[in-house]
């Protein structure tokens, strides 16, 4: 008897949840607001970057530090220069590209303990 009662309650809650979801018409969760300063020029398509940018960073940092490979396409400085907010010149803080999504996802970024998050104004002829 008790089992049937618990089962009914659970089913009712699930149905209610679904109903609510259907009400909001598809957007079931809040999404972060990310400003992209210079759109359309990233090194890989957006879905790939969203999914794999952490793997790319981990892989590239070993190549750069240990082998001295400094492909300009994958330099962190290049990412920052492109993505830094127009207003603050940084990828952190208010409107910062990296921090807006990371704050939303609640994933601490370690990179900028050491790396500068600021755009470098100097035009690089050679990286």
């Amino acid at each position: 008897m008790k089992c049937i009662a618990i089962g009914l309650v659970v089913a009712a809650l699930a149905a209610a949840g679904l109903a609510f979801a259907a009400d909001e018409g598809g957007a079931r969760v809040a999404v972060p607001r990310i400003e992209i300063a210079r759109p359309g020029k990233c090194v890989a398509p957006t879905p790939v970057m969203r999914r794999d940018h952490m793997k790319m960073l981990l892989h590239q940092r070993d190549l750069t530090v240990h082998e001295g490979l400094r492909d300009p396409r994958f330099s962190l400085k290049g990412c920052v220069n492109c993505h830094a907010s127009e207003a603050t010149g940084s990828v952190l803080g208010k409107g910062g590209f990296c921090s807006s999504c990371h704050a939303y996802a609640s994933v601490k970024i370690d990179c900028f303990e050491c790396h500068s998050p600021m755009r470098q104004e100097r035009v690089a002829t050679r990286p």
Partner: protein
Amino acid sequence: MSTDRRRFLGWGVAVAAGAALAPGLRLIELAQARSPEEAASALQRWGLLVDITKCADCEACVTACREENGWTGHGRPATDPQWIRKVSLRDKRTGFAQTLPMMCQHCEHPPCVDVCPTGASFRRADGIVLVDKHICIGCRYCVMACPYGARSFVSEEVTGQKADVPRGIGVVEACTFCVQRVDRGDIPACVEACNRDGGKAMVFGDLEDASSEIRRRLAAGPSTQVRPDLALNTGVRYQGL
């Protein structure tokens, strides 16, 4: 011979010629700076020669390193990092005085690399000894192990880092031969400053390149390592010690 065999032989000769010439082509490339997409290679070994007789009583090298790499410090000399320092020597018996710059000696057999538990302290193929600050856990064993006291532990939060020189709290760091400059064909900041403002005592170059100035200067007169008894084969050599 059939046309197939002829073609095969032709290709074979071409491949063999290419393989024979390729190392030569590579060497010519390296005489100019390495391109950013190329890995550091053991065909080069970076070295530094300091002529102490020309070392003036200035700190141009230290100031330049500070400026280039961003380790300005907090006015706490015991805990502030120092990538390069001027060391004053006075002979105990004769009283003869000298100064010289002391920095990471970029040894061929670095004790700091041997002792690092995670492998963060490593020697790049072209001889530059570096700290991979991504995997350094801050145990400071390498600081204990260095015979030259070259390494510093960052014990305060770092802000305003230079974009080319990432530095952060809790890891160990040392002179990198300005690897960010070397990798784009430039020379370390200390050498540039010494040649510009100091006593013109320092020469930086490729020890594997027989035609480089550093090789010619090393061949022209006596030079020495600091702590030669340890047989570390340092990349930094001193003349006039």
